[in-house]
Structures are given as structure tokens and as C-alpha cells.
């Protein structure tokens, strides 16, 4: 028999990038450059708004990785935001560490805390994990409320000596002819932008790796993935600890920017989990694009509607329910289904050369 007959007549490739995603990557570089240079011309309000947008987006990507990919629906990520914030305060106020150095340390320590935490809450499955993670966040809150050196239940503030010790403030003051608070915001802005970009990059790389494939398998069918030799527990643990580290760093940054911390604010389920869930759900869970869209929508709503107080929150809750019922894949899901586009191409596509077929 002819050797060639046994071979497929068409060649197959596995692709992770599409033309749209390559264009998107180029566009992302340009957007990033614009964002880096923006504070040189933008006003202080816009800079502050964007800091908020950046850290909410970074938190949303972390939660998305947890819930949308690893199937760990946590309602307790405020544990690590608050932990990161408190670590920053402890390191700078009590330990005299430079704030910028304190942020990565807060990340490492958050990961160290996340490990034993996971060993306990992972005993709860599915929906029970959600409430279990919430209990853990409450424990963290109550413990820090007992910690008198950082103000106990009422909290404390960063001293001006600490807030102005962030490297770069002096040179920006001189360069742009600004007062200290404005210069401080610009440094925070760059740190937030860097952290947000790094988070996006981290999530993207995780999803494109072999681990990412395994995550998809877990999300689609945990028992089957386990049967195929995916070590579900270890992968979930790794994702939980890694997102805790990133969330802790974001928390440290948030409270460096806020310069005032209290247990109730730092471990707020509304601020650091409910809003984050809203962002992910409205944009589209299980995609990288979804949280980006969700964060922008949330930012706009927060900016223009937050004054309505309780009514605003009722609206958010209602929107989340409607999206979950009628468009469970979120806005990005609706868009990508209609136009078949992906920007962050984390899915692998089977490409048949010579044809345009996809599987």
C-alpha cells in the first residue's frame, strides 16, 4: 500500500492566535503606551478614576480566573484585599519598609496565608465553598479588628512620611511642576497600571499554558478531567494561592492610595467581591475580554449613578440577575457569538490547512 494513503491528506495545526487577536495585541500595545503617558496631560480626577478602574479590573481578572476557569466560586476575595492592605500598613508603619517594596512582600505573604486557608475551605465543595470562603474573610476581618497596633476596630492612617516616601514622587513634582498629592497619584497610577497589565499578562499566560487547558477541562467536567489524569486538587490549589498573591498586592496598592484603613472597609464583601462579581458577570465570565468590558461599564455606572446610593445597588443586583438569566455569557458572550471574534485568544483552534474549517 502507498505510504501516503495512510496519512491524512490535509495538514492540521493547533492555533491559539487568530488574525483578530494579533491585531488586538498590536492595539493593546498602543493603548498601553497611551495609558502610560496619559497622566502627563490628564487632570487629577481622571488619574484617580483610572486607578480605580485598573484595580477593579485586576481584581475582576483574578476572580474570573478563580470562578470562571477553576470553578472556585469565592465570595471571600475581600480576605486577600484586606490582608494585602493591612500588610502594607504593618510593613510601612511598623516595619519601616518602603511602600513600593511592601507591595510585593504583601503578595508573597498573602500567598503564604492562602495556602493553609485553602486546606480548610477546600473541604467544602461547590456552592458551600462560596460561603466558606466568606467565613474565612470574616475571620480575617475580626482578627485584624483585634490588632491594636493598627488601630483595632477603628483602623488607622498612613503617616505623610510614609505616603511621600514612595520613590519617584520628588522627580515627578519637579518634572511636571505638581504638588505632592497629585504627584503621589501619578506614581500610584503607574503602579496600578503595571499591576493591572501584569495581572492580565499572568492570567493570559496561565490560560494559554498546559495548566490552562487542564483548567478548561475542570470547568467543563471536573470528574472527567480527574479521570484523564488532571490533578484537579493541585491545580485548584495553585490557582487559589496565585490569585491570592495577586489580590493581596492589589489590596496593598489600593490602601497605599487610600492611605486610611479599617477592618470594615478593607474586608468589605460589597466593595471587593460583590462589585467584582458584577464586573465579571456583566462582561462575561470565563473569558478574558468580559471583565474588561464589565470594568468599563461598572466604572461608568459607579461614576454617574453611585450618588443614588441604595437604588444604585438595587439596580446592580437586578442587572446581575437579568444577565445571569437571559445572557449568562455576559455582554462579551453576546458580542463574540454574533461576530465570532476573540481578542485574547486563549482557546485553541484546529486549523485545517487549505480549508477554512475550524473544529
Amino acid at each position, binding site marked *: 500500500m502507498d505510504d501516503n494513503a495512510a496519512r491524512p491528506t490535509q495538514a492540521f495545526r493547533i492555533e491559539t492566535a487568530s488574525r483578530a487577536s494579533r491585531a488586538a495585541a498590536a492595539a493593546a500595545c498602543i493603548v498601553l503606551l497611551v495609558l502610560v503617558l496619559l497622566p502627563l496631560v490628564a487632570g487629577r480626577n481622571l488619574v484617580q478614576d483610572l486607578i480605580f478602574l485598573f484595580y477593579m479590573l485586576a481584581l475582576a481578572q483574578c476572580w474570573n480566573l478563580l470562578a470562571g476557569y477553576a470553578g472556585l466560586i469565592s465570595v471571600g476575595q475581600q480576605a486577600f484585599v484586606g490582608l494585602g492592605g493591612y500588610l502594607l500598613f504593618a510593613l510601612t508603619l511598623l516595619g519601616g519598609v518602603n511602600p513600593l517594596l511592601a507591595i510585593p512582600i504583601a503578595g508573597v505573604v498573602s500567598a503564604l496565608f492562602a495556602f493553609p486557608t485553602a486546606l480548610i475551605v477546600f473541604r467544602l465543595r461547590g456552592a458551600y465553598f462560596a*460561603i466558606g470562603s466568606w467565613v474565612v474573610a470574616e475571620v480575617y476581618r475580626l482578627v485584624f479588628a*483585634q490588632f491594636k497596633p493598627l488601630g483595632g476596630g477603628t483602623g488607622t492612617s498612613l503617616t505623610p512620611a510614609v505616603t511621600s516616601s514612595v520613590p519617584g514622587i520628588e522627580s515627578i513634582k519637579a518634572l511636571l511642576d505638581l504638588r505632592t498629592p497629585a504627584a503621589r497619584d501619578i506614581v500610584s497610577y503607574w503602579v496600578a497600571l503595571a499591576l493591572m497589565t501584569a495581572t492580565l499578562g499572568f492570567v493570559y499566560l496561565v490560560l494559554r499554558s498546559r495548566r490552562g487547558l487542564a483548567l478548561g477541562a475542570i470547568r467543563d467536567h471536573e470528574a472527567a478531567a480527574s479521570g484523564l489524569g488532571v490533578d484537579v486538587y493541585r491545580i485548584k490549589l495553585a490557582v487559589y494561592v496565585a490569585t491570592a498573591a495577586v489580590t493581596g498586592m492589589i489590596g496593598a496598592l489600593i490602601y497605599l492610595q487610600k492611605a486610611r484603613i479599617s477592618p470594615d472597609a478593607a474586608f468589605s464583601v460589597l466593595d471587593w467581591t460583590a462589585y467584582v462579581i458584577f464586573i465579571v458577570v456583566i462582561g462575561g465570565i470565563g473569558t478574558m475580554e468580559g471583565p474588561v468590558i464589565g470594568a468599563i461599564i461598572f466604572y461608568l455606572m459607579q461614576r454617574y449613578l453611585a450618588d443614588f446610593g441604595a*437604588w444604585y445597588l*438595587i439596580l446592580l443586583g*437586578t442587572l446581575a*440577575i437579568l444577565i*445571569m438569566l437571559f445572557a449568562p455569557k455576559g455582554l462579551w458572550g453576546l458580542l463574540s457569538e454574533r461576530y465570532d471574534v476573540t481578542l485574547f485568544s486563549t482557546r485553541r483552534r484546529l486549523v485545517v490547512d487549505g480549508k477554512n474549517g475550524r473544529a
Partner: protein
Amino acid sequence: MTGWLDALIQGALLGGLYALFAAGLSLMFGVMRLVNLAHGDLIVLAAFAILVVATKLGLDPFVAVILASPILFVIGFALQHVLLNRTLGRDLLPPLLVTFGLSIIVQNGLLQTFSADSQRLRSGAIETASIPLGGGIAVGVVPLLTLLSAIAVILVLNFIFYRTPVGRAFRATSDDLEVAQLMGIDINRIFATAMGVAFVVIAIAALFLGLRANFDPTIGPARLIYAFEAVIIGGLGSFWGTLAGGIVLGVAQTIGARIDPEWQILAGHLAFLLVLVVRPRGLFPRALD
């Protein structure tokens, strides 16, 4: 020594309240595998409903609950039929997020309507009445009634589950959704009925919540957490386990409070985490499952 004994007794009585919180949650999970993140807020909502009925009609809260129960059954039935049944399926996320959204709506709806002020249900002399047990220990009548009501609720729930056709249908549906339908069970209706019953339990829990202490629109999530802890400590699948879980939680909290008043809640959480580490399936898990 008396102090510790007192803490133990008061803790067990407090546990009755937690068992009432937990019974509704346990019922929802038992029948439809629904983990309702709005459970605590629904209890607070029911407390406000009792308050309004009691003040507007000039009724005693106990009478108001009896009047409100059929209405709450219908509300629960409708909530499940119209909203929550649409979310149930293989995917965990929709029910969790829809009830989370519901929690935010209820909480802020109450804030908008009643403001953040603390409220309390008033029922005359019974509120402060207590029975002396000797040795300086006294038991409040309302806390005692709370525990007795929890026991009564569990007896009734067990009767419904194990002695009536609808209870058989609850258990069958929980066992195997598909085959339950082959028995002619309309699962949407069965789920809605279960939620209706859960709402009546919620109303009873709300009555004692409001009689025992002040409440305001923001305390719902903490009640959800206590209910959840009681369910997990007791072990899934048994209402008596839930009562035991509630009592363990209540005792842990009062003992913690006796060491330092600020440690009350933390002590309860730590007891929960300890059980999770030592006996992850709870203290009294159902044999099967």
C-alpha cells in the same frame, strides 16, 4: 464556675435561634440543592414584614407571624417558581449569583424603605420575663421559647419529610431529578412548595430574631453565615444535626464572649473551622449520601 455553666446554658438557647436560621437553609439544600446566599437577608426582610404587620394592625408579633405565614408561603412559592427554578441545573454559578444579587436587592430595598435604624419587635412583658434556675442562673422566656420553637420546627419538618406524600416527593426529587419526573412529580412545583415551607420557617426565625435583639437591614449576611455554619457543623442532610450544629455554634459564641466580649463572633467562626478540619462531613452526617 456558675459563670461558665450560665454561658453553656445561654449558648444552647442562642443555638436554638441559629438552628431556626439553619433549618430553612438546610431544607432548600436538601430538596433542590440550592445554596441561597440571600437567606439571611430574607430573614431580616421577614422581620421587617412582621414589624409592619404588628404595628399597622396593632397585633402581637406572635399573632402577626401566624397571619403572615400563608402570605410568606405564597411569596416563597412564587420566588422559586418565577425566578429560582430558572437557575437550577448542572452549573453552580447561576443560583449562587442570582441569590447574591437578590441579597443585595433585599438589603438595599430595606435600607431605602426603613433606613439603617435599629428596630425591635415588641411583645410586652414576655420580652424581659425569665425563669430562675437557682444558683444565680436564670433563663429568659424568649430564648427558651426560641429553642423550643426550633425543636418544634424540626419535628414538623421531619414529619413532613418522612410521613407525608409531599415529603416523599421532596426526598425522591433530591435523590434523582429525572426519575422523580417519571413518578409524575412536577419538580418545579415541588421546589416551589419546598421554598414556600422554607419561607414559613424563615418567618418563625425572623420572629425570634426580632424579639431577642435589635435588627437593621444590614445584618442579613451575618445571619446567613451563622445558618451555614450550623448546617455544616451538624452535617448535611439531617434536621436534628442542624439543631446540634446551631447549639455548638451558640455555645462557642457565648463561651468566646465570656473570655472577651469582642471574641464572640470570632469564637463561633473558629469552632466552625475546627469542625471542618477535624470532621469535614460535620458532627452528625447522614449515613447515606
